[in-house]
């Protein structure tokens, strides 16, 4: 692999041991994928570790997502710092708990159900706080959100990024035209400390081409309103695309950040290549079908149609619970935008969440504080719900919670990634989920 002078200096140890070590790992990986050069990154998004010297701690096997040992090396090195902060912004995904509310009850890290309950063990909490502080010292920005690209610095068209959060990668590729793989959480550690990544996968023009056309009917174009609609539509597009990059035709011209985020949320669960070409968008590589296919649309290209029935059917498909009972209603995978928080607050204002239900509203840190200032957080809490930031229910070991629980959500990603752990899942639109939180029963009325 060709290295420029700065990269070679880094590999030779002139920028310190942390960067030398990290770049060496990236060179190994680059060789494995046949990359010819390293490119500078404007944006890196990874996950905070649990810092614990004794890795034989029995809880670690359950709580550690696996990446923490990769950080050990950097925490040991006293002068370890992420790449030049003026060029590369290094951010984090949500993790285990909102740090200042660890002891408070009724949140996914500390709550009860029927005859059982769950609390994040203290040792894990302490290890997480240590990891958090270490990364902060290294220069990582502890944004801890799947919306970090919307709330810190949105990369620009054509910039290279490394996001291990799939929905962010899909958003950047699809709506911004910045370039990111669904980067492995191994590489994003090394990318953070070097500011570089081998140029491979979605960073290369030839891997960004559409392979299939997915066309929405006019009815679909007109009727997508609820965040769950966009999540279900994303799931349908991913399924119709069958693991190929789709050129999506007849998408509504104005997509809000919420719609874009919910659409992008389908990627981790449904697509390996985190990109859709929204034909007609302002991005040069997606403006026309010809551009999306890299020049000429092949004559024999496969064309799939998405009907409203397909979207309706996905609502049913994602609803796997065996009864209409609801124990948890969770919003915010990926993290809610402020608009979504406001929608939830308005719908739940003046109502009371059932004492048998936990209603969890999870968002990014800036939106959380905006909701505090503007009253939405109080509206949600007065109704008996919980709003929190910098964490996500799914970071806790849902697998170990009671399998009798039924969880209701508007996230395709949650159902798909958590649906194998034993609980029942309901999938519905926001008004139906609010009703479910209040009554303890889920009834889908979205398509009645």
């Amino acid at each position, binding site marked *: 692999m060709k290295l420029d002078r700065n990269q070679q200096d880094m590999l030779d140890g002139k920028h310190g041991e942390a960067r030398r070590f990290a770049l060496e790992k990236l060179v190994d990986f680059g060789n*494995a*994928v046949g990359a010819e050069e390293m490119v500078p990154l404007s944006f890196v998004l990874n996950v905070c570790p649990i810092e614990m010297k004794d890795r034989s701690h029995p809880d670690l096997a359950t709580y550690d997502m*696996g990446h923490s*040992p990769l950080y050990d090396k950097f925490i040991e090195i006293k002068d370890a710092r992420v790449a030049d902060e003026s060029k590369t912004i290094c951010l984090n995904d949500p993790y285990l708990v909102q740090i200042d509310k660890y002891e408070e009850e009724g949140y996914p890290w500390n709550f009860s159900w029927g005859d059982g309950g769950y609390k994040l063990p203290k040792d894990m909490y302490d290890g997480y706080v240590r990891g958090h502080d270490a990364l902060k010292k290294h220069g990582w920005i502890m944004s801890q959100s799947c919306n970090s690209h919307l709330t810190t610095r949105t990369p620009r068209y054509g910039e290279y990024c490394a996001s291990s*959060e*799939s929905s962010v990668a899909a958003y950047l590729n699809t709506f911004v035209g910045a370039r990111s793989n669904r980067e*492995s959480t191994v590489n994003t550690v090394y990318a953070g400390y070097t500011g570089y990544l081998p140029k491979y996968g979605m960073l290369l023009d030839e891997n960004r081409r559409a392979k299939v056309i997915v066309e929405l009917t006019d009815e679909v174009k007109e009727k997508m309103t609820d965040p769950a609609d966009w999540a279900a539509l994303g799931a349908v597009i991913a399924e119709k695309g069958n693991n190929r990059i789709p050129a999506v035709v007849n998408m509504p011209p104005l997509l809000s950040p919420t719609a874009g985020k919910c659409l992008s949320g389908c990627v981790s669960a449904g697509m390996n290549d985190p990109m859709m070409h929204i034909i007609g968008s302002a991005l040069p590589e997606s403006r026309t079908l010809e551009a999306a296919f890299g020049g000429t649309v092949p004559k024999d290209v496969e064309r799939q149609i998405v009907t409203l029935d397909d979207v309706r059917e996905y609502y049913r498909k994602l609803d796997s619970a065996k009864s209409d009972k609801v124990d948890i209603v969770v919003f915010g995978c990926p993290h809610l935008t402020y608009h979504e928080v406001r929608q939830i607050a308005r719908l739940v204002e003046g109502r009371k969440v059932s004492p048998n239900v936990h209603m969890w509203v999870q968002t990014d840190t800036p939106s959380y504080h905006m909701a505090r200032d503007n009253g939405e957080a109080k509206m949600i809490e007065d109704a008996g719900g919980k709003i929190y930031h910098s964490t996500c229910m799914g970071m806790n070991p849902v697998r170990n919670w009671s399998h009798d629980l039924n969880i209701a959500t508007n996230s395709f990603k949650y159902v798909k990634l958590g649906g194998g752990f034993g609980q029942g899942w309901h999938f519905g639109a926001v008004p139906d989920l609010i009703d479910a939180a209040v009554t303890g029963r889920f009834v889908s009325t979205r398509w009645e």
Partner: protein
Amino acid sequence: MEQVKVMKGIARSKGQASGEALVSEMRFGWGYNVVTNDGGIIGAYEHPLNGQCVKGRIMVYPTVSGTTLGSVGLFYKCMVSKVGPTGIVCRNVHDIDIAGAIAGEIPAVDSLDGDPIQEIRTGDWVEIRADEVGKEATVTITRKASS
């Protein structure tokens, strides 16, 4: 009599490994808690291999599915909780799994001269020899006569 077949492919992560095959026709990912750290048992969304143990096996699957955390998941199973597979064979080893296999120090092979999902059955004994990344690797499949 045993049947032995040797297939050739490309090494995506280097190493030598052997083990009983566990074959998935469905895509598979090593995401957070999909495989238990105490026993190596699979629990994925509507996956046909749920309940099966990956420990010491050669995992054969088309390509990755699900979260990017699969990379560290694979690393963690192999290097920390010690319930990981000894190697992986895919039609296409996705970049997420390449990173996980390199960090987990197990071989990963793809681009075989035949479809591994068709050629390898669960229970076959599989040996991988993958000496250098990007170069030819061999996958030797031994099937007992009774299977």
